[in-house]
């Protein structure tokens, strides 16, 4: 084992949480969660953004006072002029930016930034190119297996891995939260606000399969890289991403901090996570290069 300390990044809240819940969440994170940096910003649907905009400065201030590095995560699939202009405004405002689409990388024009998990980096050449374009850290797409991560993380101290939370799987122009209720995206009435961990999607046999979050589709399972933390660190990974769910994220952060520091075993960590109110079972399929829904074995 090397001595490199793994840092922890709290990813952006991917769901349309009511703004009061959003503020309370970050307030508690600022005060209690042992994470090094916190991503804020609306990544999935720009229609949700105005709610957060009203309170974002206070939240940033609070997080910074709590000693967290704050990162502004940008929209994963901007399509209209207003959306790209908003991204440009956040760059101008001087935030540390996490780019989730190539359009944002273009707008950054070489300024140092972070690349989020929605940009396709599958190999060492793409990673090197993004580092040349100004990326200082890259959170890899969640479907990458450990075998690829080992090659990508080698020697650059820039790789972050999606280590906790429902895995983001797809984006669409269509809003499925709205479609499930028979309404169109333009008339959505923000129905996604009722789905704090996404809306569960089951197969015809009633087997839980996916979760829908507006235009985003996620896995039903909850990614948990607990058994692989040592391997990831040994591979040169410098940071683990914890993606917010409604469960106690302060507790999740403590579990991963203890795990990264060698103060707990993967088995204990898995047990600690399992007793939280998770939206689905723990999974590490993508890391093991088997179907992404495959459950993690904890012993």
């Amino acid at each position: 084992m090397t001595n490199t300390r793994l840092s922890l990044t709290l990813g952006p809240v991917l769901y349309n949480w009511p703004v009061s819940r959003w503020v309370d969440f970050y307030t508690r994170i600022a005060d209690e969660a042992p994470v090094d940096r916190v991503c804020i910003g609306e990544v999935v649907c720009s229609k949700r953004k105005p709610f957060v905009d009203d309170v974002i400065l206070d939240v940033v201030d609070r997080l910074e006072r709590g000693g967290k590095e704050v990162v502004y995560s940008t929209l994963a699939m901007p399509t209209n002029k207003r959306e790209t202009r908003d991204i440009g405004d956040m760059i101008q405002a001087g935030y540390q930016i996490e780019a989730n689409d190539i359009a944002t990388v273009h707008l950054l024009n070489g300024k140092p930034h972070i690349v989020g998990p929605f940009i396709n980096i599958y190999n060492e050449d793409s990673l090197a190119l993004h580092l040349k374009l100004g990326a200082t850290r890259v959170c890899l797409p969640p479907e990458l297996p450990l075998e690829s991560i080992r090659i990508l993380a080698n020697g650059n101290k820039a790789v972050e891995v999606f280590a906790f939370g429902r895995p983001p799987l797809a984006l669409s122009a269509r809003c499925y939260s709205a479609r499930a209720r028979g309404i169109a995206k333009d008339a959505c009435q923000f129905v996604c606000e009722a789905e704090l961990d996404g809306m569960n999607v089951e197969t015809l046999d009633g087997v839980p399969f996916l979760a829908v979050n507006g235009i985003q589709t996620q896995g039903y399972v909850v990614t948990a890289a607990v058994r692989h933390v040592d391997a990831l660190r040994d591979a040169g990974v410098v940071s683990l991403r914890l993606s917010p769910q409604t469960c106690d994220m302060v507790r999740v952060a403590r579990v991963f901090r203890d795990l990264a520091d060698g103060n707990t075993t993967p088995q204990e960590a898995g047990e600690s996570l399992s007793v939280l109110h998770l939206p689905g079972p723990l999974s590490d399929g993508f890391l093991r290069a088997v179907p992404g829904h495959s459950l993690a074995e904890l012993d």
Partner: protein
Amino acid sequence: MTTPLELVCPAGTPAGLRTAVDAGAHSVYCGYRDETNARNFPGLNFDRLEMREAAAYAHQHGAKILIALNTFMRAGTTDLWKRGVDDAVEAGADALILADIALVDYARKAHPKQRLHLSVQAAAATPEAIAFYRDRFGISRVVLPRVLTVEEIARLTAHAAPCETEVFVFGGLCVMAEGRCMLSSYATGKSPNMTGVCSPPSHVTYREDRDALVACVGGFTIERFNRGEPAGYPTLCKGRFLTDGTMSHLFEDPVSLNAVELLPRLVECGVTAFKIEGRQRGRAYISTVVRTFRKAIDAMASGKKVDFEELRGLTEGQRDTVGAYKKAWR
């Protein structure tokens, strides 16, 4: 307008390529028989010799050949993709269709004069994203994602110039943003981005259940066909699911894309290339579809009326949609 309209047709096999060329394709697109292309299905695609012969055939008949290497390079094995680029250039490709940013970079550096197209798998859906690839890598054409409306296509095409735009007008329809979908990987371990397959046949199973045929992908039951009902291929995003106890085609009905009625609008928008999906399709299908579309495009190019009835007839008996091209789809 200086750029002539171009009908871009699929070629899954050498015979399919000749069929498409003979039927009037302005250009054909195809790929090598490995995971470098996004239609990596058994029995499809071209080996090195076949590709050189295919290029020669296309060129003899005045057609262009576009070679797709549009998956994302696997870590540690990027040589497979780079060799593909080199071989495609040597085979005489009129353009390469690429998705991985590093492969685009490689192709531009190793073959400075080679024409490059940006695959739909790169999901360039904004003027900024297109400018990125155009300005840094000299991309000549971008294949637009199927998630855009006609209005958005018009705006993008205006901003993209001198880079051309190509849009899908017929065939399969991805409801997710292409190149950004891991549903198949989640259910089966095989994904479009990494292995060039989606909901692969190797992971599809059927079982009889009373009077119905039940289809599973990766063990997940996603469709149930009653006896006598036509059983379409079970693609994950076209399956039926339960949400809050209600069963529906949550993502998309099992429809295919047919944007024929939008052709004149798309031409007005400045789109110059029209793509037909379906490298896995049979020769009879390809021949009919290509011939019919070529007639429509020739009519538009010479200012004549398009025979829409004939085009609509192509999907007779099947359900089709103009998809995201109309905003109400969303």
